[in-house]
Every structure is written in structure tokens, then in C-alpha cells.
């Protein structure tokens, strides 16, 4: 909290008014789109094999936010998912547990009950997810509701309409307000992840601006997408966000986490992201506290690859739970 408070002070000049905020965000250096794409593609060609691959797969499993965000979610499904989060591969006790289970706010209590003190966090999407089209009061009530139910992390969506029409102050104030709503009665605060829905932000410049806006407003994590819009997470977009958190730490000393979500389906993709985290942000971010994958199908792929590494033969989807 103190770090966030001091960051607010640090950028008090910037965030004082709509005009100063716009001046700052539009003053950020533009993103070289071709360069970003090429750099991301280049990092994607690194070959990660044998023991490094074993390490990367386990790390990736520990970074997964196992997600179910469907209208058809039932308490039974959430319980099953939570059980899987604690013991992803029941056949192999050495398999690590995932970072968190990500559900809608009304399912938080159910997930919390199953996860109990396992160390797996419960993340809840709030603020009228996925569109973010609701009045601020409702978004705040949504957030408080999830926090009271026991959510450790809140994934909020920004108001893309306001952002795209240049009402940065409104977006900023909303993040600050939601951050306050994350506070618990015991003085602690749920971690806040801010979702940009980069597939709707149109340009890489906007991704960079949104990253800075959210970081200045007190986000603990910045997250690419809801998973409901295509394209969801891509390597270049994540690269820009990683650059932003790296630069932010240089300026303020505060570390912010990054979470690509949606569209990451294969173990190979996940490893590409890890290579990029290491190369762009640095090895400090190679930790579930600072980097997460928002995914559902990815976990089975990681488990299959992990099984391949331990047994020496290819595994199949028949041997893992459906989710």
C-alpha cells in the first residue's frame, strides 16, 4: 500500500488533470510496430530443451491462473477445477500446483471452500466483466462482493470506450476506486489485475499508454485480455507490457506483474512467453507472483509435455481431466 501511495505521489503532477494525463500518455515514445513484431517473433525461435524445458514446464504450471468464465459454470465444475488446481496431475505428486483459480464473483465462495489453505489463490473477475459496461457504483459493488467472498485477486476490466475516446482521467479514477474497493476490513488488500482487452485497443501505442495509466493508478498486475475477444494475448502485446513494467520499476522501484490471457494453448507458446519475460523484463519476473498465464486448455498441454519428459513417451488427452 505504501508503495502504491508513493507512486501516486510520484506521478501526482501527471495525474492531476485530464490534460496532464493526456500530455504524459501521448508523450510516451511510440511503439515501432514492425520492430516489436520482429523482436517477439525472434524470441519465439529460441530452443528450450531437456532440463531447461523441464524447469520451464514446471514454472509455467505454477504460473497458470486456471480459468473458467462461462455462463454455464456450476458449483460442481468450479469444485472440480479447484481440485485440479491443487493436484494438476494426480498420477504424479511431484507436479506443482497452479497459481490461482479464476472465476466469476458468485463462484468465489465455492472455490475458496475447496481450496481452503492449499496456497492456491482465488481470482475473481469483477467490474461488469467482460465488457465493463456498467455504472461505477455497480462495478465497485461487484468488486467488494468478490473481496468479501474471499477473493485474493481481482481481475478488473478497464472502460475501453472511455479509453479510446481519450477520457483517460475517467479510466484512471475507476482503477483507483476499484483498488480502494479491494481493501479488506483487516487492512489487507486483494491484488488488483487490470485487464486492457488489447484486442480492442487497436494500436500498440494504446497498449503502452494503457499500461502506464494502470500502473500509475495502482494496479498490481496488468493483463492483456478477457479471453472473450479475438485476438486475445499475443507475443508482441505482451512484449510491450513487459517493457512497460520494466521501465516502471526503473523509475519507481515498484514491480508490477504481467498476465497474458486467452489464446495461449500449447506448451511451446507458454515457453515462448517465458523466454520473453526473461529477456525483456528480466529473471525477477520469472515467478508466479509476477507473471501469470490466464488459461484453461493450456494446463493439460503443459501436463502432457511434462508427462512426456518424465516417461519418455507422448501422452494423450485421454489421461487428463476435461475442463
Amino acid at each position, binding site marked *: 500500500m505504501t508503495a502504491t501511495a508513493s507512486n501516486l505521489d510520484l506521478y501526482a503532477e501527471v495525474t492531476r488533470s485530464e490534460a496532464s494525463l493526456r500530455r504524459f500518455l501521448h508523450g510516451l515514445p511510440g511503439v515501432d510496430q514492425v520492430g516489436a513484431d520482429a523482436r517477439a517473433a525472434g524470441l519465439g525461435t529460441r530452443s528450450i530443451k531437456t532440463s531447461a524445458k523441464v524447469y520451464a514446464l514446471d514454472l509455467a504450471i505454477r504460473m497458470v491462473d486456471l480459468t473458467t468464465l462461462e455462463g454455464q459454470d456450476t458449483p460442481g465444475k468450479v469444485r472440480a477445477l479447484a481440485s485440479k488446481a491443487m493436484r494438476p496431475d494426480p498420477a504424479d505428486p511431484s507436479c506443482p500446483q497452479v497459481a490461482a483459480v479464476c472465476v466469476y464473483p458468485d463462484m468465489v465462495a465455492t472455490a475458496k471452500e475447496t481450496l481452503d489453505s492449499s496456497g492456491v489463490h482465488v481470482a475473481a473477475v469483477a467490474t461488469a466483466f467482460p465488457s465493463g459496461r456498467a455504472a461505477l457504483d455497480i462495478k465497485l459493488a461487484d468488486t467488494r462482493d468478490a473481496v468479501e467472498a474471499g477473493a485474493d485477486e481481482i481481475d478488473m476490466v478497464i472502460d475501453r470506450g472511455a479509453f479510446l475516446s481519450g477520457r483517460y482521467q475517467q479510466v484512471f479514477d475507476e482503477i483507483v476506486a476499484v483498488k480502494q474497493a479491494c481493501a479488506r476490513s483487516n487492512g489487507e488488500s486483494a491484488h488488483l489485475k487490470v485487464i486492457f482487452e488489447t484486442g480492442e485497443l487497436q494500436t500498440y501505442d494504446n497498449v503502452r499508454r494503457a499500461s502506464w495509466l494502470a500502473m500509475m493508478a495502482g494496479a498490481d498486475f496488468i493483463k492483456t485480455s478477457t479471453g472473450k475477444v479475438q485476438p486475445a494475448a499475443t507475443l508482441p502485446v505482451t512484449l510491450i507490457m513487459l517493457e512497460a513494467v520494466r521501465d516502471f520499476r526503473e523509475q519507481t522501484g515498484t514491480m508490477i506483474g504481467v498476465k497474458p490471457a486467452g489464446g495461449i494453448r500449447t506448451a511451446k507458446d507458454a515457453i515462448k512467453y517465458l523466454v520473453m519475460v526473461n529477456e525483456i523484463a528480466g529473471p525477477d519476473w520469472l515467478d508466479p507472483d509476477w507473471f501469470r498465464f490466464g488459461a484453461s486448455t493450456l494446463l493439460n498441454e503443459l501436463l502432457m509435455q511434462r508427462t512426456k519428459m518424465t516417461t*519418455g*513417451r*507422448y*501422452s*494423450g*488427452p*485421454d*489421461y487428463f481431466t476435461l475442463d
Partner: protein
Amino acid sequence: MNARIDVRKTYKLYIGGAFPRSESGHSYEVADSKGKFVANAALASRKDARDAVVAARKAFGGWSGRTAYNRAQILYRIAEVMEDRRPQFVQATQQSEGLSAAKADKVVDEAIDRLVWYAGWADKITQVVGNANPVAGPFFNLSTPEPTGVVAVLAPQESSLLGLVSVVAPAIVTGNTVVVVSSYDRPLPAVTFSEVLATSDVPGGVVNILTGSAATIGPWLASHMDVNAIDLTGIAGETALATDLEVAAADNLKRVRRAPAAEPDWTLDPGLEPMTAFLEIKTVWHPIGV
């Protein structure tokens, strides 16, 4: 004018309805029966085999869910398109197997006829191997054959076209999807066959053709937990390798069509065994009068 420059081809694999290069980037030289260079073929790696299994698994639901009648139409369509490309098949068979033009012509005839023959079986095999069983109780008791799933096929090494068709067609006609490792020394008829498949209404992934070594790729397919059956015809006579693959296949209880001592005579009537090898019999009990 100078003589025209040769178009030296490097053929690719056929996986999931697309023609990718080998993930390994490797290729190998293919020579004709007299040892003269003909073309380069992709040398499939274990990862290509893995990708092919994923593609075959993905295609299985759709393919096995089609009506037998429709599968017959599609197999017949393969035969039609092969007929259209007959000269290319004759040439490829001649080059790879060292046959005379007349003999190669006959082999291509046989291959096309075999497809037509299997096409006819699509909506008949159930009647022949299925049954209404008499049971001591008030039940209808019906046994019906169902496809085994994803079948890995090590295709014959000698007979590069007729042999290939004779192992692929019986597996797919009943609704299985296949990952085929073609003849190592004679891969080009298989490559041309894959081009036919791509243009004859066969959904992508139903047949995946890898050019490369059965000895290298075979063990990965035999131990693959998502492959339901393996046909070892392509390693006929290699007893030690065949035993190893059978042992690996036991891990997930794969159906194994065992390697023969020597490559069979493909011109003979194949009978039903090639089809029934990759069928599972499901028996349903249904109360009468309810």
C-alpha cells in the same frame, strides 16, 4: 536456347490436410530403382509424428461420425482422382519399383480397383461382422463394429503404391483415422497419393502421410498414448524391431497388426482381416417390449 533447367523437387509431408515441411528441417534424397536421383523427400521426425497424431485425433470424431455411405463416396472419389492422375502414378511406380511400363500400369489399376473395392465395403462391413445375437432372455442383443480410433500405419517398404493403398484404405473406410509412415526408399507414390487425398473430399487429418524411416518414427508411434492401434506391415521380416514395437504398444493396450515374416503378395484378395483388425465390437442389450 539453353536446355531447360530441371525443376528439382523437394516434397513435403501431409499432416492435417496441409503440406508442411518436416519440423526438423531435414530431407533426404530419393533415388529411382537404378540409383539415379529423382527428388528430395521430407525426413519426418518424431515431432512430425506427434503433430500428425494430434491432427488424426482431431479428425476422428468427424470422420467416424459420417455415414458409412458418405465414407464410401469419399473413398470412391479418391479412386476417381487417382484415375485422373494415372500417368503420374504410373511414372512414380515405375521409377521407384523398377517396373516395366506395362507392369506399372497394372499396379496402378490394382491400386485404384482396391480403393473402389474397399469403398463398397463401407456400408456392408457392419452387416457382415455385426450380428443380432440370440440370448436367453427378453432382450435384443446387437453387436456392431466401431472404429478403433487413431491407427498408426507403417506402410510396406516394397510395394509403394498398391501396398500403401492396401493398408490405408481398410483402416479409413470403417471410420479410423491414420498416421502413415511411407516406404523409406520409395516414398514418391505416397507423396502423389497425399496430393490426391488433399483434392478428393477427404477431410484434413483423416490420412496423414509421413515420409521417413519406420525404424526411427515407429517407436514413437508405438509408445504414443493417444494412438489406439498400430499396423506393423512396413517392418516385415524385422523381428527384433517388431518385438520392440509390440512391447511399447502394450503400454496403452494398442491393437497391433503384427509384422509378417515377408511382405505379402498385394495382388491377392485381401479378405476382411485388414478391416476387422481395426474394429471394436460393441454389444448392446435392449429389453424387448419396454
